[in-house]
């Protein structure tokens, strides 16, 4: 579905791994140790179809992910999946929103240039006329303390 990451897009020294997504598809990802700090005062917003395909992103999303809007719209949201994130977190996300509830968690996202950024994400179902027509995620600047906790915890869950 999404293409492998390309060395020419990467900034700095990188490592390489292959992610296997929930649906069985695979992607080669290249990732570095370069963190992009969360921009103060901004929210990073995206909406997806019920299947998790990106339908809409705001400017902060484009800036932080490093992809163009055209590359993002129509792509599955796992285009940002970082190898350090435990699959269990996303399983919990999907189970929670499919029950019609709000999910909140700390997520390490992978940029197009191989770097990463931490967010505190809230995902909710978009209910229109009693039907779920998609999902919206709004990310905000996380507390450093919580990020440090997650950075320690997540590798033990993988």
């Amino acid at each position, binding site marked *: 579905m999404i293409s492998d990451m390309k060395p020419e897009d990467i900034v700095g020294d990188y490592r390489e791994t292959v992610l296997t997504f929930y649906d069985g598809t695979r992607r080669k990802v290249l990732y570095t140790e370069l963190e992009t700090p*969360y921009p103060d005062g901004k*929210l990073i917003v995206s909406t997806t179809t019920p299947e998790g395909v990106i339908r809409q992103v705001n400017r902060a999303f484009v800036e932080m992910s490093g992809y163009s809007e055209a590359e993002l719209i129509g792509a599955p949201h796992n285009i940002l999946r970082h190898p350090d994130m435990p699959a269990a977190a996303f399983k919990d996300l999907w189970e929670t929103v499919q029950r019609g509830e709000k999910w909140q968690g700390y997520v390490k996202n992978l940029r197009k240039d191989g770097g990463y950024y931490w967010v505190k994400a*809230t995902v909710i179902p978009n209910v229109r006329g009693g039907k779920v027509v998609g999902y919206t995620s709004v990310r*905000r*600047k996380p507390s450093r303390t919580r990020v440090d906790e997650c950075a320690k915890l997540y590798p033990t869950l993988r």
Partner: protein
Amino acid sequence: MTFLFTVSPDFAPDRLSGWYIFNTWLQKQTGTAIHLEMYNHYQQLHQAIEADKIDLIYANPYDAAMLVRNKGFLPLAKAQGQADEAIIAVNADSSVRDVADLQANSRVAFTDDPDVRLMGMIMLEPADLDAGNIVPVLADTHVLVAKHLLKGEADAGIILAEAYDNLSGVIRKQLRVLVRSQISVIHHALMVGPRLQAKRGEWRQVLLDMAADEKGRGVLAALGFDGWQTIDDEEMEFMIDLMDTLNT
């Protein structure tokens, strides 16, 4: 029948007469009797909403959610190019340089303006601050939030960005802004309740045409607006969903 119109209590005090002028203009344009009732506090407003007294409201985005979901209100229009944003400020002499420098039990001043408080609290989260570990200093107006900072009665203040920008230069010089929100999709909305829904299309057109008319432009100037802009149902739903994600 006379319809009841109200404006969210966070309106800028110097726009009070503007809202009365707008109401007179709207009555003339629509040939409808409308009574404007201004509430000083959210508590009074919420009681009136609960009692189904309101027919037309210029609503805070925080209330808009409840009005749409529980009270059958629909959006008409928003002020062109305006969005609600918040800033976090400290006294210019404070040693706090970054939100992350703020400690638990900091005294944080704010008004009862619910969307500004929500945006402000989100900007304090990076410092591990939340409603449970700050000392709230409730102020009647955004100007009074600034005064608490100047007098050293609060360590940080949450202020509506527009209100901050309208503070005198003398006051602003004694403050330092740590962070300003750039959310841009949260805004007030003019909304109609169930008894006015049949008039929605007609009234919206009247509002959209307002900036093209000389008298209308004068009324808009009294409100500090350039014009009205349609809010469609999906834009409203999106804002409500967004507020919902922020509300935890």
